[in-house]
């Protein structure tokens, strides 16, 4: 199972998909493309506290977090 976590004003929204289900993967990839296209950064967890930026959709990523475009504060 893969999990996409999208940060939002409620904390986050979570979307899970089955890595063996083509339709689920397609939907997850579509979400990835839409979010990153809108400026979100995608990062997958590769270990405890360890992350890696995702430039393209990785169907095997177990957990991916998305956060909006960064800005100076």
């Amino acid at each position, binding site marked *: 199972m893969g999990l996409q976590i999208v940060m939002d*004003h409620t*904390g986050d929204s979570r979307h899970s998909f089955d890595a063996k289900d083509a339709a689920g993967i397609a939907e997850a990839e579509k979400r990835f493309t839409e979010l990153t296209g809108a400026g979100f950064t995608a990062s997958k967890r590769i270990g405890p*506290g360890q992350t890696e930026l995702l430039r393209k959709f990785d169907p095997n990523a177990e957990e991916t977090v998305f956060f*909006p475009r960064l800005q100076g*504060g």
Partner: protein
Amino acid sequence: MHFVLRCAEHAFKGFLAERGREAPALLRVTRDADPFYPGDIRFTAEFSQGAPLSWRVDGRNLRRGEAGILLRPVSLFEPDELSAEISSLYSRLFEDELIERDLRVARDAYIAVISTTSDPNTCREAGRLFDQQQRTIRSWHQGADRARWHQAAGGVQLVGLQRPIGGRRAEIAVTDDVVFGADSWSTSTVELAGPMLTATQQREAQRQINARMSMLLQHLDGSPALINAQAMARHYAEVTGMGAFMVSVDVGDENAQKKGLALLKEWLTPEQWTQYEAHRWFEVKGGSSGNRYRINHGRQMNIDELDADGRKVCGWCFLPEGQLVAGDVMLAQKIALETNEVAALKVANRIGDFAHYVYYDSVRAEYWGGARLERRNVVVVADPTS
């Protein structure tokens, strides 16, 4: 008073004439003491049609005969009264004066820096900041950034409260007020300035600050929120000689804040989470530079860059767009610093630059009536929530 009348009349007539509408009659102008700023005066002009217009006049500067420069519509500070119409009027009436004033302050700050140091790096950095400030000021006054900031802030602009504490002054204000929008901080600042307070007075100051922050938060959205003093404030005080809190107000409801912290816990290393639980900060290592960063609990102005000995070098401020809760923001900051440090710092504002403080300080000093405070007259109270 005459100036206020003229402004109100001219503004409304001009606005309506542009739209082919008949100018309303000016019914009356009332004046009363501003409830948030003792010494300031609030004028309200009522017309035969349309919403009343309000201005706050800085009483101290009014006495100096500079009311024309410092007239600012109260409506900008109070979202309930803010309307596109009034905002438009404000822009046409005061924008030219304000942009000129902001640019002059920025230029003076730059000159102050280059005339007091021969360090080429400092001068170069001051020049870079001056350029950046000019761009920011122009951009802000042209409206795009301001509109975006208004939107991001949910329309909340300012709640300012001021009341003497033991004969000293305590002030709470959203910094956007102080810097005239030349900087887009939405972080609240709590400032204490005055002769060194006794421990009892400090506690009283903290109590009063807490009470005022509660009022501020109720005004913001009526929901509980976290208030966190930032360690940055101490560094700020060292550099500027001004006592200050940088208080970060969390957003969202309690559930959202809890979810944010839960997500943060899931994604931190065990060591980082242990640090956070103990200190409300955790350290990360820059993915490109290997530099140490301490991410304090908060949403803005909450990142410290540390040297090898753990001393603060400077602060950084960047965060994701939108109203994300503190836990989400801190996680985004961690990921950005660890995996894409260069890009993150490229958009970040650096805190700790001499020029920045001179600029900010000079504006604030003017805001306070021209009096500069001396370092020996500063007290920094560590944490208003403790």
